[in-house]
């Protein structure tokens, strides 16, 4: 197994700090100390891809090249970064006229890339490489008593097929189940949250997120866990608007799967960024305290 280098991306350094604050300690407990990719740049996400394909490939190419030099594969917690890197990786390995030219220019700037780097999401690595058995060994406090809807969004499951099922993935469900959490049968788990559109198009954003929140509520979920900073952000901030438009009050906490893992591994909850939630998380604490049992 090749080692991983950690590509944070812009979101986990700003609006999704609690993702990084939980994912790094969790990997450390599991014996993987993730080092940050040196002098990393933004992946460009859907923006660069919409403006200029060659530039989008080149900015991701820079990241792939730095990782290759370090002889590591990339682990990227943000779904948008994950997909941008994977798309660029595919594009640069295509041997097309355009990709050859970009690679040539990269080489001139000490950014040679031979195409050896793989891009993985933490959930993939946790489940497929570290494994549920090892994770279970690290659980100090089972999180019985709460019901969770796990929400994957779009960009880790599509269009590439290697993560999990494209419509009904179960990787993250299995992860949180190994902590004692009960997951609900959540058919909206790969419905779209609107991505970058939600912040600017209120009505569209409210509608798409309403569908996801309502489904989770109907299934009896106490909270939603996710693996993507933008999904988390959209599901949190649209709740205000939704109460105005649809006259329904959601107070659904949205968490990163890694926060629950950290909690189950016995890390103090103050260090896992729960206080960064825009939605009060009290309902979860009440339930965990009632139902939680030490192993």
């Amino acid at each position, binding site marked *: 197994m090749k080692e991983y280098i950690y590509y944070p991306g*812009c979101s986990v*350094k*700003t*609006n*999704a*700090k609690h993702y990084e604050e939980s994912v790094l300690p969790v990997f450390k407990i599991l014996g993987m100390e993730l080092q940050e990719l040196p*002098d*990393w*740049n*933004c992946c*460009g*996400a*859907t*923006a*660069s*891809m*919409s*403006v*200029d*394909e*060659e*530039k989008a*490939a*080149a*900015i991701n190419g*820079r990241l792939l090249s730095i990782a290759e030099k370090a002889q590591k594969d990339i682990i990227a917690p943000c779904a948008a970064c994950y997909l941008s890197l994977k798309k660029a990786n595919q594009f640069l390995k295509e041997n097309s006229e*355009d990709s050859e*030219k*970009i690679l*040539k*220019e*990269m080489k*001139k*700037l*000490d*950014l040679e890339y031979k195409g050896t780097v793989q891009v993985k999401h933490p959930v993939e690595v946790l489940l497929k490489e570290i494994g549920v058995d090892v994770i279970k060994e690290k659980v100090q406090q089972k999180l019985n008593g709460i019901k969770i809807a796990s929400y994957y969004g*779009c*960009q880790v499951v*599509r*269009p590439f097929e290697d993560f999990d099922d*494209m419509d009904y993935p179960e990787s993250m469900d299995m992860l949180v189940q190994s902590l004692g959490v009960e997951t609900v049968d959540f058919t909206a788990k790969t*419905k*779209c949250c*609107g*991505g*970058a*559109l939600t912040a*600017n*198009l209120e*009505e*569209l954003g409210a509608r*798409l997120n309403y569908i996801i929140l309502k489904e989770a509520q109907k299934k009896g979920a106490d909270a939603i866990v996710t693996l993507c900073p933008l999904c988390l952000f959209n599901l949190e*901030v649209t709740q205000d608007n939704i109460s105005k438009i649809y006259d329904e009050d959601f107070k659904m906490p949205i968490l990163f799967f890694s926060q629950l893992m950290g909690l189950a591994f016995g890390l103090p909850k103050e260090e896992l960024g729960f*206080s*960064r*939630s*825009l939605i009060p998380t009290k309902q979860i604490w009440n339930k965990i305290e009632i139902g939680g049992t030490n192993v």
Partner: protein
Amino acid sequence: METQEKVYYEEELNPEFLDTIKELSHSNEIDRCIQCGTCSSSCPDAAYMDFTPRKIIALTKGGFEETVLKSFTPWLCASCYNCQVRCPSQIKITDVMYAIKRKAIQENVYPSRFPIPVMYKEMHKILTKNGRSSELWLMLNLYLKTLNPIGLIKMAPLGLKLMKTGRMSLKKESIKNKKQLKKLLKAVKENT
């Protein structure tokens, strides 16, 4: 948002438009569209679009360049890839949407009073200059560009909440080796 309805004469169509989009999207399969509508029915945003994804494919095939490039549809595409993975003809519809966006920007015919293209352009500009994007600067830029100070005021309570929870920074983020990135992006554009 207005729906465009206009009679087109054959002389106004561009028969080469299909090939342009095929090349830009790396999706040669566009001709194989059977107009089944699977894409439109999988699309979470179809209700807001002036032309559904199925229609965009048909218009592209028919050479309706102006209609396609001026459409809101590609800018309402959230890149969820639902259509693309379900299309029975394996048309890379999401990539076609991206190709249309890039062409519309290149030709400067995108819907200019619509926030999404402005946002993408600004974000791309900031990150190619600094290597990183910082959301606050982006939002400010965006609202100034679309001349919508009310939008900015509406964002204030959210901004405050994010500040309180330590989730927004006023710092302008940037990478160390901006020079390398700048040179790379310049070279890529000159030589491709």
